[in-house]
């Protein structure tokens, strides 16, 4: 099971939509403190979301980012010029596209090492990629937010590691999240939501559960995740369970590999589901929802609009 | 069965260089000759299992080569030389295989088939073996089962390739005696490749001596198994004696061979 989750996770967190990205605004970058002031910030001990502690000895000047959400954060914090390499899927902001590519689902180790980074940020991998990077002598920080609040705090974590204050950015993101939550908490209904991560194998359908920030977004958006009682962040559901839990809204990321709404509606037996009967099968831009990045507030708003259109005209 | 001017072989190697053989109903024709003479090859041509490069094989006037496999099998039955099988068929089921060429489109065995199977088992004296598993009987019993299978085909011609190869002397005689009797009683033409010249002498009504892909002599036992021909084809070391009006081939004792060798 864990082996399966890794590619899913990678898919979720790395893939950018090939079919056009929505025009979104990234929060304005914070002006950098001067280098001398930065010197006092190092060495810095940073604790990640899995309680691993990493000590960054000096201000990193050559950063490699493995994960489009991380890349967005780094640029939002103003550390963009210090990023020397990023994964294939990092495409926001536009400047990120010019960076050296270090691999997609599979990390190109040689490429990473050849860039001589003094700090590597990465999303979570369960196939030994992190260990391999570490054993090559590189300093690796894993960024794996478990809920929407963690995403906001990623700004602080990254900021501490690169020597820039991420407090303001974090606060802005959190405020946006809170605004959405307060609006939806006033809603009369709490519709059952089924968020489909990947159903390319129809017998193994993956959704989001506790520990996934997307599940948290569903909650913020005023929905009730049908997999809320699952035991992992990306649990596998059977068609029987989905039918039984009868979601009122089905949310699909509009990525190329995702199922299209009419395909979902045509699945055997799914016609009895409320969401299918009421044609509430909706899509959300993948590079918005699949990235625990600085635009997560915007993602929450977009999600809330889908779940409670009456509150967000 | 008439075979005319058969030339046949494998790939580029021609084994039979113009052979004529005839077999009539009731006869047991023994095909003898040294190794590599082409006896087995000839048998396969007669059975329609090997296409000759030239020449023809006819049965009652019918050209064997023009027939399909099913029809050939109704006219010619071949007793296989190798009959090892891993599958637990019973002897009766093996004998029933002989009816394959006569099965209807549905492939079920009818009363005619059952009768033929029973008759074949009876003729061979294998009725008591009928329900035993073929992979659990002795070599001699397997031999009889396979012979019964060929008989069940109810073909006019029976071809055997060294049918006594793995049998003890008693079984060898018993098998050939049975075959000769069946040939007469059922009116079948039998052609048998035999290595044992004495068996051929004892049971064959006619003998064909083959060497180097050609017929050396074709005639009755006394006319073919002679000292002169035996020496010519098989080399020195064999003596032909007459006993009870029949020729017997005896290997020379070792000392006599030495004498021959020294004489050059």
């Amino acid at each position, binding site marked *: *099971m864990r082996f399966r989750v890794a590619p899913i996770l990678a898919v979720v967190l790395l893939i950018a939509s090939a079919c056009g990205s929505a025009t979104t605004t990234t929060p304005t970058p914070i002006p950098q403190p001067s280098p001398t002031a930065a010197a006092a910030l190092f060495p810095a001990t940073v604790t990640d979301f899995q309680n691993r502690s990493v000590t960054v000895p000096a201000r990193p000047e050559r950063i490699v980012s493995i994960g489009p959400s991380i890349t967005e954060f780094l640029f939002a914090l103003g550390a963009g010029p210090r990023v020397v390499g990023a994964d294939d899927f990092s495409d926001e902001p536009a400047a990120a596209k010019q960076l050296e590519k270090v691999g997609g689902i599979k990390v190109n180790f040689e490429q990473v090492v050849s860039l001589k980074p003094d700090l590597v940020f990465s999303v979570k991998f369960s196939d030994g990629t992190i260990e391999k990077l570490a054993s090559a002598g590189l300093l690796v920080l894993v960024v794996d937010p478990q809920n929407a609040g963690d995403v906001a705090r990623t700004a602080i974590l990254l900021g501490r590691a690169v020597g820039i204050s991420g407090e303001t950015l974090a606060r802005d993101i959190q405020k946006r999240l809170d605004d959405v939550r307060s609006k939806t908490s006033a809603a009369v209904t709490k519709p059952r939501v089924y968020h489909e991560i990947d159903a390319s194998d129809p017998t193994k359908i993956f959704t989001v559960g506790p520990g996934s920030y997307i599940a948290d977004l569903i909650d913020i958006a005023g929905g009730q995740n049908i997999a809320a009682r699952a035991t992992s962040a990306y649990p596998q559901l059977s068609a029987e369970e989905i039918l039984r839990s009868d979601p009122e809204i089905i949310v699909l990321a509009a990525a190329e590999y995702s199922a299209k709404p009419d395909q979902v509606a045509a699945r055997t037996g799914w016609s009895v589901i409320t969401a299918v009967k009421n044609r509430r099968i909706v899509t959300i831009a993948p590079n918005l929802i699949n990235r625990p990045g600085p635009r997560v507030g915007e993602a929450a708003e977009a999600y809330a609009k889908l779940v409670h259109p009456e509150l967000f005209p | 069965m008439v075979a005319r001017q058969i030339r046949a072989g494998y790939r580029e190697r021609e084994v039979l260089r113009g052979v004529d053989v005839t077999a009539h109903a009731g006869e047991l024709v023994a095909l003898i000759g040294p190794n590599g003479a082409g006896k087995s090859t000839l048998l396969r041509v007669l059975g329609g299992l090997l296409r000759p490069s030239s020449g023809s094989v006819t049965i009652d006037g019918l050209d064997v080569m023009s027939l399909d496999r099913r029809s050939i099998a109704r006219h010619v039955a071949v007793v296989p030389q190798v009959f090892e099988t891993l599958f637990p068929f019973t002897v009766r089921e093996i004998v029933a295989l002989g009816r394959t*060429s006569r099965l209807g*489109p549905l492939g079920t065995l009818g009363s005619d088939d059952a009768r033929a199977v029973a008759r074949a088992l009876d003729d061979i004296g294998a009725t008591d073996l009928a329900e035993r598993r073929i992979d659990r009987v002795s070599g001699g019993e397997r031999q009889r089962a396979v012979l019964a299978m060929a008989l069940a085909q109810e073909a006019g011609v029976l071809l055997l390739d060294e049918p006594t190869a793995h049998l003890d002397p008693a079984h060898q005689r018993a098998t050939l005696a049975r075959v000769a009797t069946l040939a007469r009683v059922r009116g079948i033409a039998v052609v048998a490749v035999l290595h044992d010249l004495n068996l051929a002498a004892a049971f064959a009504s006619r003998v064909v001596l083959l060497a180097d892909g050609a017929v050396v002599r074709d005639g009755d036992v006394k006319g073919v198994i002679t000292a002169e021909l035996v020496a010519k084809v098989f080399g020195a070391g064999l003596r032909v004696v007459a006993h009870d009006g029949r020729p017997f081939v005896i290997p020379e004792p070792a000392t006599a061979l030495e004498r021959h060798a020294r004489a050059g």
Partner: protein
Amino acid sequence: MRTVTVFALLVVALALSAAAGILVGAVAIAPGDVLSALLGADNTNGTIIRELRLPRVLGAALVGGALAAAGALLQGMLRNPLADPFVTGTSAGASLGAVLAVALGFEPALVPLAAFVGATVAIALVWRLARLGGRTTVLTVLLAGVVLTSFAGALVTLVLVSSDRLALRLRAVLGWLQGGISVINWNELAVAAVVVAVGVVGALLLAPRIDAYAFGEETAAALGVDLDRTTAAVLATTALLTGAAVAIAGLIGFVGLVIPHALRFLLGATHRRLIVASIPAGAVALVLADLGARTALAPAELPVGVITGLVGAPFFLALLVRSRRVIA
């Protein structure tokens, strides 16, 4: 053992295991509700039972029966109790067909069809390769099958590894390659049932000629079997049966191998009897394997191929030990 007894036992076993398959699933449904669902209750349980579980159980039975019958056919023709549909390269062709279909971006619904076409092409190719020597012998068919399996396997791996994006789409194919009764609807089931029925009829008609192969091909010819036509017919029937099975359930091993082999001990070697009994036996095996796949690590589903492998391999080893000789 009397044939009728064995057959009756198998049919009873099939009914029982099918019942178990319908009663058990990812969602717990009380037996009373299951019954009313079968009788047409118009609620979620009804849909789950009638649209999801029932076709799945029936699909498993169909696939198991088809694979077992194909295995019996091939073992008879190849005179090798270790033969199974996949030895002839059918699985290789099927998997290659599926992988190519996904790589070329076909509709997901067309992928099983591509697999079926691949299976047929593979069998035709093996047949041609085996005939290159002028005469189709059993050994050359086996060798050609092995070669084709290796080659197709290499191609599949190449395609899968060469591209990240393809790897995404092919996740589905990977799961399918490991064997699993994918969610099928009644239409697909009906089509597959017709195909399998045709294949079974063909297999039963060919059975007496397969018996004649007992002592080898030359003897079969001497007994009156048209070797080329019969081999072609057997391969075609096998392609039909295996193609239908693969289209529904991906690659499932051991059923075609173990079932006929085990039944031969009980029923003797006559192929008509063997094929008739193999069908319910194979069906039971796969219905139970699918049940195991659905429940062993619930709610996750194991690939059915894992269950058949885990159970089939030791079972087969036990059979080997029991029988005295292995391969001719």
